[in-house]
């Protein structure tokens, strides 16, 4: 009830809508990582189980996974950039977002999304290292 004193119902709803989007956005980078992980293992598993051991299929598989990796990394970098901006939405510089205000909540979600983007970026790199370094189904 106290909030009604300093913000209107309309603004409240707009803020809630924005935070709901932010909350959804922090899950996107880890989701891309998870999808990239599942897709890479599925493509490698299917290629190695069903097709030739070391033939052109393996080269194609590496190219497909490589392309998927570039797309995943690109999306994660973009999300990271968006959340970096959200974290630093004010001109006070980055700091701990620990106040119970809508601005701090907004920045906190950006902060969390930014850190999760970094973890997801590293996760995608780790997932793809075997394809890069091993290069055969054996």
């Amino acid at each position: 009830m106290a909030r009604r004193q300093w913000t209107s119902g309309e603004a409240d709803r707009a803020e809630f809508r924005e935070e709901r989007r932010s909350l959804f956005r922090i899950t996107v980078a880890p989701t891309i990582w998870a999808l990239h992980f599942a897709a890479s293992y599925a493509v490698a598993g299917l290629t190695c189980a069903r097709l030739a051991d070391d033939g052109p299929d393996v080269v194609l598989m590496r190219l497909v996974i490589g392309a998927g990796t570039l797309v995943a990394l690109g999306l994660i970098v973009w999300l990271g950039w968006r959340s970096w901006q959200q974290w630093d939405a004010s001109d006070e510089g980055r700091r701990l977002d620990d106040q119970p205000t809508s601005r701090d909540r907004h920045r906190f979600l950006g902060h969390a999304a930014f850190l999760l983007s970094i973890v997801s970026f590293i996760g995608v790199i780790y997932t793809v290292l075997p394809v890069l370094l091993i290069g055969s189904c054996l």
Partner: protein
Amino acid sequence: MGKSRGLRTFAMILGPGVLLSACDGPQSALSATGADAIAMEGLFWVMLIGATLIWILINGLIYYVTRVYTGSLSPRLAHGLIVGGGIIFPLVVVTSLLVYGLSAMPEQRAMGDGVKLRITGEQWWWRVEYWPEGADPANPPVAVSANEIRLPAGSRAEIELTAAKVIHSFWIPALGGKLDMFPGRVTRMSLKPLSVGVYRGQCAEFCGQSHALMALNAVVMEPGDFDAWLKAEAQDAAPPKGYAATRGAEIFAQQGCGACHAVRGTPARGGVGPDLTHLGGRTSLAAGILPMDREALMKWILSPASLKPGARMPGYDHLEREDLSALATYLEGLK
């Protein structure tokens, strides 16, 4: 008090020393002689030394901040320590180890370019089949043996692994990593031994009552010696020489040993137990648990299950001692 403290110090020094002695010998990943085992030994030492250094560093830091410098640290330094030591350092270490480990893997899984072997895990022995370099494994093997593998030094042997009834695992620590053997499925590995010698392997997956008694010797030979050996191994058994061996061959036939065992070149064609065509030429008996001599053979034939609990071969304790001795002489002569 002084004496017991001295004893304790002595035990603390001696204890690990005694344990370290197990790091040597024919069955040790730390006396690696195969290319793959050498790579893994390198990985082990890098990890051990790295982990020790990190352990010393962390404990040193704990000691420093609790005993040496107990004043407060600047938030800037603390923050730097957390980000540098807690995030960046582990990231660099884990990434380096991942790249190092992964880049060592293709060589470990490389296709063999020399002799081909198929090894089947049985309860509790190993069926071993050989194809020479260039042969098609779709054809029957040129030689069938058991409980011992022979490999030429310097080339990479291709090894197919499978199992008869339960899961086993094939592991010769001095030559390479271990790999499980599954009934109804073929797994493959390759080994590149580099030094001539006899190494010991052991079933490394619990496979029943006598799992611990399922070992084998891996004899690494000079390539020329290996070729000669494989040629001889592919031959039929030599006819028995001398009275005792001839009598032993008769007993072998009378007792129906050939129902389970094969001796190529004789009517014995059984495939249930190990092929005995060149039994006497092997370096051990009963899957690495006994020496290959007449006494051990007699002991084994008399009562296999007392040496290897659960073994399905019946004991031949009804045989006269002379007959048992003749049978052992015949088997020992199957070089």
